[in-house]
């Protein structure tokens, strides 16, 4: 489909093909649900964890397409077709990464996402876009190379066993007899390598830059579905390595990376001057929480998966809203933003609701997940982690709420720079309200099927 879009170069046909792709993707998700835990084409398994992420990707890709069409309204045909072709490719590669049942396969798809994302970040063809794209490709390539070295170290532990595939099931069988030093090195490389996609410290900088220049619907995807790809790649490795003796080592690595991510995000959010960068740091904060959840273990695993799912819904809504905010206020600079409630009440409501949801303030579903996460820390006696996390979360709440409140209710701090406000139809916020509504509903009611899927996906982990 991507190739045909580039060849055809027709706006209407491109739109039809893109919408058709979204429908096919939804149908495919339904097919995967029917065939849960089935392996197909040797390299793909429709397991519970992959299916959770695939379903949520399919759901957010629909408003992403809608907002992309609005964003691309006045673009020339070349940029329009490249954008849509790269968009379809990105969704396809991410889907492949979610369903991959081996480290080598997941690695190939992760590498492929870099190509598609690069084309999307570079969409505006500005100097800043070029800089962000270059940094993204370069650091991602280094990350991918490091992850590959990690996979090679894993494969070295399988010498002489007669196994020549790197599927998760083979790995799980062989890992208990493997050399722990090899496993530790492999894990560190995989962890650091795929952190470029997950946006976790120390490889977080490129995703922050990418967010600030890419089109808002793409920021929504990078900040959610693509970060989920990185998380899944690391978590898959963690799942099969958890039966080995390096489990405590891996947990420590997760906790350290998580706390440092929280620290960096809190620090930068307190001095944020660019709205999209602030949201990007908020993603870093949430990924930090996810890493801490995995590191703490026990019910922390459940909390980590729940945080990442709810973060996907909330953050995508906020980034979709950024598209409208930029058309109303004509800027993302916090000093030049203000009076959003007067200018675009529907958007301001999304911003405030989104802020409450992302900061895990009740009735946000994230409140439940973060509460479980903190409870896991207390149950496991991780008091230091608990105190540091709570303190840093307070900083994040202060930084984000003061800035969003300023944008919504105050006058601009720099009135000389204010542009003539644009006009945006409130209907565009519908998808954002639906997603945020879902996040709020999940605070009061978590459907048994969701709970079962999360529990299934973490069932192999030691308590």
């Amino acid at each position, binding site marked *: 489909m991507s190739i045909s879009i580039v060849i055809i170069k027709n706006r209407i046909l491109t739109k039809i093909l893109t919408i058709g792709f979204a429908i096919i993707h939804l149908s495919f998700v339904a097919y995967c649900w029917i065939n849960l835990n089935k392996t197909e084409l040797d390299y793909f398994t429709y397991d519970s964890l992959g299916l959770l992420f695939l379903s949520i990707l399919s759901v957010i890709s629909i408003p992403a397409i809608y907002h992309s069409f609005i964003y691309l309204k006045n673009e020339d045909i070349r940029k329009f077709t490249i954008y849509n072709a790269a968009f379809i490719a990105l969704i396809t590669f991410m889907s492949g990464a979610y369903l991959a049942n081996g480290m080598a396969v997941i690695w*190939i798809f992760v590498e492929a996402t870099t190509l598609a994302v690069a084309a999307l970040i570079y969409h505006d063809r500005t100097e800043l876009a*070029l*800089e962000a794209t270059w940094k993204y490709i370069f650091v991602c390539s280094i990350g991918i*190379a490091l992850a590959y070295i990690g996979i*090679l170290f894993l494969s*070295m532990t399988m*010498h002489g066993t007669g196994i020549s595939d790197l599927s998760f099931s083979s790995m799980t069988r062989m890992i208990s007899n493997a*050399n722990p030093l090899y496993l530790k*090195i492999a894990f560190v490389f995989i962890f650091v390598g795929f952190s470029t996609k997950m946006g976790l410290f120390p490889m977080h900088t490129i995703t922050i830059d990418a967010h600030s220049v890419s089109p808002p619907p793409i920021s929504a995807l990078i900040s959610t579905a693509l970060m989920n790809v990185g998380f899944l790649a690391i978590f898959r490795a963690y799942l099969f390595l958890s039966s080995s003796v390096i489990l405590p080592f891996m947990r420590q690595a997760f906790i350290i990376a998580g706390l440092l991510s929280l620290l960096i995000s809190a620090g930068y959010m307190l001095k944020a001057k660019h709205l999209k960068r602030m949201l990007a740091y908020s993603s870093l904060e949430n990924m930090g929480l996810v890493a801490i959840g995995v590191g703490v273990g026990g019910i922390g695993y459940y909390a980590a998966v729940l945080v990442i799912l709810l973060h996907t819904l909330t953050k995508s809504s906020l980034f979709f809203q950024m598209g409208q905010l930029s058309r109303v206020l004509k800027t993302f600079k916090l000093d030049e933003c203000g009076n959003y409630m007067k200018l675009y009440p529907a958007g301001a409501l999304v911003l405030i609701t989104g802020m409450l949801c992302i900061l895990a303030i009740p009735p946000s579903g994230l409140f439940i997940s973060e509460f479980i996460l903190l409870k896991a820390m207390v149950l496991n006696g991780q008091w230091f982690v608990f105190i540091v996390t709570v303190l840093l979360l307070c900083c994040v709440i202060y930084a984000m709420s003061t800035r969003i409140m300023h944008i919504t209710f105050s006058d601009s701090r720099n009135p000389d720079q204010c542009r003539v406000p644009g006009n945006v139809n409130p209907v565009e916020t519908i998808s954002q309200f639906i997603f945020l509504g879902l996040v709020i509903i999940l605070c009061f009611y978590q459907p048994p099927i969701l709970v079962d899927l999360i529990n299934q996906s973490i069932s192999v982990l030691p308590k």
Partner: protein
Amino acid sequence: MVNYLIVLFAVTLVYLSITERFRIYAGLIALQGLLLFGITFLELNEVTTANLIFIAAETLIFKTIVVPYLIFRIIRQTGVYKVHELAMPGFYILIFTIISLLISILLANQLINPYINTVYMTIALFTMFTGLLIVVTHKLILSHLIGFLILENAVFMFSLAVGNEMPMLINIGILLDIFVGVLILSFFGSKLKPHIGELTKLKD
């Protein structure tokens, strides 16, 4: 014979770490490609002929000819011949290179495995450290590209260590090579003005 080629490969790394001229960088990258071709040819005797031809072609055509050609083209287009004057002096880089060689030797000895040649492991680790060192200590984008290409060669050496049992992994490594070569060197190499040292417009 393989061990001689591997040691020669290590010598190119030491030279790469102290040189300051991009033409020499390009020449050494070509030489490394040739050495990797020799190592592949001598080492991978259990893979299928088709696979061997594919891997040999990648090292001989891509690593030895295409990549150095693209680097030379960038040098010609930009007129930049030497590394940034603010880059770390070669003498200090040499000291770090030697330290990284010692670390590689120690680490490889900790990782002794009956199926993997220790010399192989040492030089692969050394190549990885040298690549990362060049990325970190240099200022120009072209220097970063060179560092990354060295890291790529490290990846290739690691994959050769398991190549006889898992040839699929080498093919994946080649995929990474081509991905980087085509995308970064040909597209961004010319668009991004590789003589520019600092990309700091995007900041908080």
